[in-house]
């Protein structure tokens, strides 16, 4: 029972895009998620229901560069490549270090983490905080979309079948802000987040100038609320207890985690709020 499998591996991005325009394909970058998602039992190749296009060798998708204030990251950069790149902000590197283990980081890509759209995706909370935008390319040209519009639900993204995410663009790397990322997993390596939290805060003359937070693994997509963030802009540091409590209860209403084999809804919510309050209760914030 030899099934015919169609797979493409072009030398150039434009050829790849032309093929995608002709045919709906499954795109494989590092494959660390796709190969597990479609895994067969032992000894049998994964069953992927569409023709396959390999893209992780395309050099066009591996560039990292600064353009004006924007940092452009090629979608097929592996985590290890990003860890070694001086342009990548420190906070993002800290998040990368919490991903799986070295062998996976040598293969998994930033674009893949985004397109896999797992609620527990390790890179996502920070990318939301950075207001990351994605550059999608097709034979018809380029399109830019914010990460929060792109990711619509678990494993659901707003990508047309003829498009490839080519770049992740960070409009600002928040170098004047204090940025944190905390991943809560069941162990210290090779774990999937039970809860994660990213926060950034910029202070100007003891007042909050800009503040952002995002939570992972507590809902179908990353939870971020610009409305709640706005309430804190202009407040003085340290924040008083009532303000912190108000923000906590605002998020309490919109965080709706689930019970699963890794943790409980109650734990996820409690810890998400703990990490938020802890971030808000700090006495001082240093730009990193």
């Amino acid at each position, binding site marked *: 029972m030899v*099934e015919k*499998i169609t*797979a493409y*591996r072009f030398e150039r991005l434009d050829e790849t895009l032309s093929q995608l325009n002709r045919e709906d394909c499954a795109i*494989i970058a*590092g*494959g*660390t998620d796709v*190969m*597990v998602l479609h*895994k067969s039992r*032992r*000894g049998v*190749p*994964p069953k*992927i229901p569409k023709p*396959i296009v*390999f893209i*992780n*060798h395309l050099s066009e998708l591996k560039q990292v560069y600064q353009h004006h204030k924007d940092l452009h990251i090629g979608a097929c950069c592996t985590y*290890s490549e990003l860890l070694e790149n001086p342009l990548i902000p420190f906070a993002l590197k800290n998040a990368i270090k919490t991903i*799986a*283990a*070295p*062998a*996976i980081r*040598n*293969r998994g890509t930033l674009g893949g983490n985004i397109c896999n759209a797992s609620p527990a995706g390790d890179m996502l909370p920070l990318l939301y905080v950075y207001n990351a935008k994605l550059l999608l390319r097709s034979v018809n040209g380029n399109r830019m979309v914010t990460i929060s519009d792109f990711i619509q639900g678990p494993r659901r993204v707003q990508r047309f079948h003829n498009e490839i995410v080519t770049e992740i663009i960070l409009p600002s790397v928040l170098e004047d802000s204090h940025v944190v990322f905390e991943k809560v997993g069941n162990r*210290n*390596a*090779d774990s999937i987040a039970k809860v994660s939290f990213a926060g950034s805060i910029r202070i100007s003359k003891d007042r909050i100038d800009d503040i952002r937070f995002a939570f992972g693994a507590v809902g179908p997509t990353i939870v971020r609320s610009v409305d709640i963030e706005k309430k804190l802009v202009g407040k003085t540091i340290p924040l008083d207890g009532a303000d912190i409590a108000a923000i906590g209860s605002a998020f309490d209403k919109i965080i709706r985690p689930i019970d699963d084999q890794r943790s409980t809804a109650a734990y996820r919510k409690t810890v998400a709020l703990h990490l938020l309050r802890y971030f808000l209760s700090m006495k001082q914030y240093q730009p990193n």
Partner: protein
Amino acid sequence: MIKFTLNGRTVETDAPATARLLDLLRDEFELIGTKEGCGEGECGACSVFVNNLLQNSCLIPIGSIAGADIQTIEGIIETEQFKILDESYSIAGGVQCGYCIPGMIMASAALLSKNPHPSEDEIREGISGNLCRCTGYNMIVEAINLAAKKGDGLW
């Protein structure tokens, strides 16, 4: 037909592009040193080098390795580096059931070639994707530490 380099030799296969590198190595090329412990990239028993980088062969569709340089444990057995690791694992007592060991050796070699004098934390980090259920890791950490000293200048 997919062509690549395997342990220094050019090889080709007509296995489907989605076939796992792990199965190809074990079934077609009869390289049994690459073991399957989980099939999901969570144990590291199937670790190989792809273009000199440590990767889990259970997660690699062979269609993506056309033209790549693949090395398995069999490909490094004759090297000085392997001999040092072999000896260090023996002296430190890093081997019990042995099923994780080829993958662990690959991870050790990958770590040392990138960082010839790793700290204890860096060693732990370097093998953090390689599960061992027998040793509690400490004697493996010690083995790598020893290999770094014995193989000074070699990595």
